[in-house]
């Protein structure tokens, strides 16, 4: 793909605790209402990034600071801009099965086998599912469950 030179900047805005999505909505509101003419193109609120939102803009930092003054629950702009490349991983969030590999010993934390230990046999990253076999079961029946329904107990061989 022949992408043009990247010109947009990304700034991080600090927010009041737990108000990340509210701040994103408020930024949109302020711009939609015409209360600010600062050009924000998009706002990312990654689940992993507590207390911040990321704004994509064609403007300089001082303009984003002007914007922040008008946005409820937005506090300050962090010094220094970042690039799309640096935040791209937030756009493809890490699957919940990451950190689990074949042979990992896990404990079921939800579902009918809650509390049972199991060994991971297979991982389907795309569907965020893992197939496990119960550890202490006489008949090792494979069970496919969501990757966030387990807690890692032992990383196994590739520690």
């Amino acid at each position, binding site marked *: 793909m022949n992408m043009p030179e990247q010109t947009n900047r990304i700034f991080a805005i600090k927010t009041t605790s737990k108000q990340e999505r509210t701040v994103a909505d408020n930024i949109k509101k302020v711009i939609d209402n015409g209360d600010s003419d600062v050009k924000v193109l998009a706002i990312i*609120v990654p689940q992993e990034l507590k207390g911040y939102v990321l704004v994509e803009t064609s403007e300089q930092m001082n303009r984003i600071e002007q914007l922040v003054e008008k946005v409820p629950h937005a506090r300050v702009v962090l010094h220094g801009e970042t690039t799309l490349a640096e935040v791209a991983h937030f756009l493809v969030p890490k699957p919940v099965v990451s950190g689990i590999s074949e042979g990992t010993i896990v404990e079921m934390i939800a579902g009918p086998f809650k509390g049972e230990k199991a060994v991971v046999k297979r991982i389907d990253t795309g569907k965020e599912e893992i197939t496990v076999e119960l550890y202490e079961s006489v008949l090792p029946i494979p069970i496919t469950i969501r990757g966030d329904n387990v807690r890692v107990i032992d990383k196994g061989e590739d520690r």
Partner: protein
Amino acid sequence: MENVVASSRKKQGHVCRECHRVVEGEACAVCGSGNLSTDWTGYLVIIDPERSEISKKMNIKLPGKYALKVR
């Protein structure tokens, strides 16, 4: 960590499983899908899809509110 999980599980709106758009009502206004989810994380507000590189990366053509990740 428990707080993080709790806050991510709190009541939230529906999003479309097809296009990840936040949906008001019974079906997605964009793709018409009724395949909705309340199990989603991350949030994205697209204001100018024409000029946003994030929109291009996410292949989003319309302004609006989206989930980053939907189950």
